């Protein structure tokens, strides 16, 4: 059932939405005066959505955040803390052999209002010169090549190469909204904030796998801005804070917290988890992470079911690999307790619901993929670390 993805503002609603013949449903991002307040899924009949009461349906779906926003506007009250001077920024895209996706991403980045930000493409282990040529075709883009494989390796390279105070990361298969960068940077007014994450929505929901990803592994974290610190939030459980597809970190994180763990994330045996591991370290060190739903990034999920399964397997590996690092390197002895808690309350329940075939439950093959990933996680981390040290030794050896 393909679903159309629409972006509507309540103040400029059309009477009905036409031209949706190829779709059965419409996923709508609801905005109020340009700011996101909620999302809704509308049925599409005969190529048209929302014949009766489009506005009412969307208002109901948006719920409390819309009402709160409306009230704040009505009172002339700004809920956000004072922003302070905007820091200088670098937008970094770490990519590996996906020139088509990167093309769309760069096009979106060109549409960002020019506040003097730098755009950096970190090409990780390229197989061809396509990416370099693509980057060269845009005058404003700076190109850097990183030959050691690993997304975290590329991120660290971006942090070191960046000239701005804040580095905003996006994936190469995501296209940010025009207001994305400004929204991320607004969160850095507070000195205690080292990282700001944003809201990631699906760019398209054409295939079942994409819908499955959105439902079972989606990036959305709601429409309410939240500040996380170690007092309110267990540093070991950072899945709900955000994802590396849409985050900005201060460059000073390199020396205050340390670099991304190069044994983690895509391109290594651990497949994911590098971003969450950094979040853990940031919270454990007493700093804050802010989730800013106005920083919207549109991500193109993987299209085939096999890729979805592989992604969920990768998540399982990544979470446990990150926890392994936290336990062995940071000495976080409460990792086993956290892992047991997640298993008991999260995974076991999902498994049970899936086995009982309740409606709306996660398909069994996806649940099993994630569990298999979890089992493989710790060993994957150790293997990955051995590879990283082997690489470093090889580099250090005189040629």
């Amino acid at each position: 059932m393909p679903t159309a993805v629409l972006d509507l503002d309540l103040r400029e609603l059309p009477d009905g939405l036409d031209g949706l013949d190829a779709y059965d449903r419409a996923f709508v991002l609801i905005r109020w005066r340009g700011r996101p307040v909620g999302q809704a899924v509308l049925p599409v009949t005969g190529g048209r959505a929302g014949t009766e009461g489009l506005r009412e349906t969307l208002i109901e779906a948006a719920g409390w955040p819309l009402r709160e926003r409306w009230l704040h506007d009505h009172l002339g009250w700004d809920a956000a803390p004072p922003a302070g001077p905007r820091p200088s920024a670098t937008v970094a895209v770490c990519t590996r052999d996906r020139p088509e996706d990167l093309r769309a991403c760069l096009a979106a980045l060109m549409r960002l209002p020019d506040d003097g930000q730098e755009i950096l493409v970190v090409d990780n282990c390229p197989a061809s010169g396509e990416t370099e040529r693509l980057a060269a075709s845009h005058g404003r883009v700076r190109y850097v090549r990183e030959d050691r494989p690993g997304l975290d390796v590329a991120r660290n390279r971006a942090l070191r190469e960046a000239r701005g105070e804040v580095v905003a990361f996006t994936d190469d298969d995501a296209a940010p909204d025009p207001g994305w960068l400004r929204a991320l940077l607004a969160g850095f007014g507070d000195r205690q904030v080292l990282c700001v994450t944003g809201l990631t929505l699906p760019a398209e929901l054409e295939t079942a796998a994409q819908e499955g990803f959105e439902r079972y592994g989606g990036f959305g974290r709601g429409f309410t801005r939240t500040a996380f610190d170690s007092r309110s939030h267990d540093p070991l459980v950072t899945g709900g804070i955000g994802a590396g597809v849409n985050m900005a970190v201060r460059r000073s994180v390199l020396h205050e917290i340390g670099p991304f763990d190069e044994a983690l994330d895509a391109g290594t045996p651990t497949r994911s988890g590098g971003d969450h591991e950094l979040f853990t370290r940031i919270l454990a060190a007493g700093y804050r992470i802010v989730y800013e739903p106005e920083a919207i990034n549109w991500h193109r999920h993987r299209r085939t079911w096999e890729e979805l399964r592989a992604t969920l397997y990768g998540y399982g590996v990544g979470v446990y690999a990150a926890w392994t690092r936290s336990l062995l390197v940071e000495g976080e002895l409460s990792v086993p307790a956290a892992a047991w808690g997640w298993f008991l309350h999260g995974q076991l329940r999902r498994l049970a619901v899936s086995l009982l075939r309740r409606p709306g439950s996660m398909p069994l093959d996806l649940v099993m993929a994630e569990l298999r990933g979890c089992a493989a996680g710790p060993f994957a981390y150790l293997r990955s670390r051995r590879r990283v040290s082997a690489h470093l030794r090889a580099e250090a050896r005189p040629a």
Partner: protein
Amino acid sequence: MSVVDLSAIDLSVIDLSVIIPTHERRRSLERTLTALSAQTSRPLEVVVVADGCTDGTADWLRSTEWPFALRIVEQPAAGAAAARNAGARRARGGLLLFLDDDVEPTPELIAAHAEAHREGPGPGEPGKAVAGPALPAVESGAGFFRLGQRAWWFELFREMGRAGHRFTYGDVLTGNLSLPAALFTRIGGFDPGLRCREDFELGARLLAAGAALAFAPRAVACHFDGTDLDGSLRRAREEGRGDVAIGARHPDLLPALELSRGPSTLGGIAFGLPALGDRIAAVVRRGLDALEAARLRRPWRGLYGALRGYWYWRGVASEVGTRRALRDLLGKAPSMDREELRIDLRAGIAEAEAILDRERPHGVRLLHGGQEIGSIPCRPGAEPLRGIHLRRVLAERLPVPLLRALPFEGPFPGAGPEPAALPHPLPQPPPISVVVCTRDRTALLERCLRSLLALEYPAYEVIVVDNAPRDDATARLAAALPVRYVREPRPGLDRARNRGIAEARHDLIAFTDDDARADPGWLSALARAFADPEVAAVTGLVAPAELETPAQEYFELAYGGMGKGRRPRTFRRERMKPGELLAIQAAGVGANMAFRRAVLAAAGGFDPALDVGTPASGGGDLDMFHRVVAGGWTLRYEPAALVWHQHRREMAALFRQLRDDGRSFGVYLIKRWREGEVPRSEVARFALLRWCPWLAGRIVLGLLGRHSMPPRLLWANLWGALHAPWAYVATHRDGRHD
């Protein structure tokens, strides 16, 4: 002595004296003074008070060249408070800036403080005290304690910098504080007897004197707090003693102090068995280290809190002595019943803010038209309210009641950019049909209709159902007013009500009697109750319109009148026992009730067999309430929906009314018995064990002279009840129900 006096040469010098008390911290002091040398605006002078320094601070200060005028005051160790007072006495500047010796100012600090003082205090304020953030210095690899401390300081300054923050005495922190010298002298400086909390105590006196408090976010200083965990526990003990001193000196602050909450279990040990408590505390302290090693954050925080609480109460106990002394101290707190100013937001936000700035009340009750939104309560130790506090309270604490009130009372002017252009995402007040059934009481009806036409509600209609009238007086009255008129020739109140339902155009139907007058906010309150989609029926409060004759007084005060209390109640079948379901007269009266049309249709309309004007007079409303609740719907009693009822003036009429009440309740019970929905055993039990004793008991009390009503009236209910079976048979024989 090398003092470089620059004030004669340099015109960019600000009339500000920096006062730094120091005690055995030469390195730290050096850091502070170096930073003061690099300020963008030069101070008039820096006064360093060496409080019992034996590490050569004074000599070192004298032997160094400083780019500002430096005054050195030496005194034997007397504490930081006394040191600051001594420094203030020697200072010449118009502004005093207090810095601690472990605080390193950023280059803009003095300029920021001076800037904050440039705008003078408001009218009637003796001065302004400005605090700046003293952010803890960053260090890597810090333990749980350090991290917790940092987070606490950051949160404090973050809150102080937020718009609409209501300052309290606890915001006065002498690590980075400036105030005019005149104000300092006026309130008498610091209390030298306090070793701890002397800044809070100063804050309390500043507030008492009416001074304003402000925050300068750019006056940043870096605080190198050397306190470690054990130091914080020692400090907690001093804080306990300081709080006792503050409480003794400022009893009005007692509710705001930690000690007013009473000791925890661990704290209680500090009173009785301090030696044992200290040993337990030492063990717990080691446990804390173990938790930190195991990286168990939440348990560590809990345990640290408990330990700190113990040492705090140890300090309190050492000052106060016994629990009784503590109780006496706490008893001195004055009662908090301060006058709350009432502000109606309908006049506009700007108007409300102006009122707050003018009156500076301690507490405020906020209304929007007829609807109460909430209150900003009096807080001991906090500054009186200002205009800037309002929006934050409305946006953060009261959004829900405000959102509920806005559709009914309308948006208020002066709020937000274009209030008219903003589309209303909230449900519009639903239109209501008001049905008044009347029979030959035109004079009373006129008053009722006039009150209905004066209702403050945007969309409603009034339907007058004229029930078997003798003449056309009512018809003429209705023709003269913008109401709908309908004639129901068959006598019977419930028939008339059913006719009203049939004629009504809207989905919400409200009923009132012709001898009642509606309060202007009646429909708004009903609509607000119906905003909850679960609610199927709403009843309201019926208050006496007048209490002029003895009959009215008996009815209202001795019998209980028609009101059912001032607390809203929800009636749902699942939550009620069968007896309560039968005693449904507690849910409301027919003079003030409203239903959803769909529910009336599903429950089946009023039962004409229980009608006034028939032998069985007036149980139709009770019967409907019972059917609604027994049918599984929710009935809500909403006292905000107010109607004034004209009670019977004459005793004879009152007797008849009470008799009719008794009779109709009896008929209602018989109907319940015959219907069989409620188990008959329950009906019987209710009648025999609750109703009859009630009826009989009042008579007995009346005979004994213990009841306020005259015995004749007390018989009335029983008299009516005894007639109930005949009345029931009579109405059914007459074929009154259709």
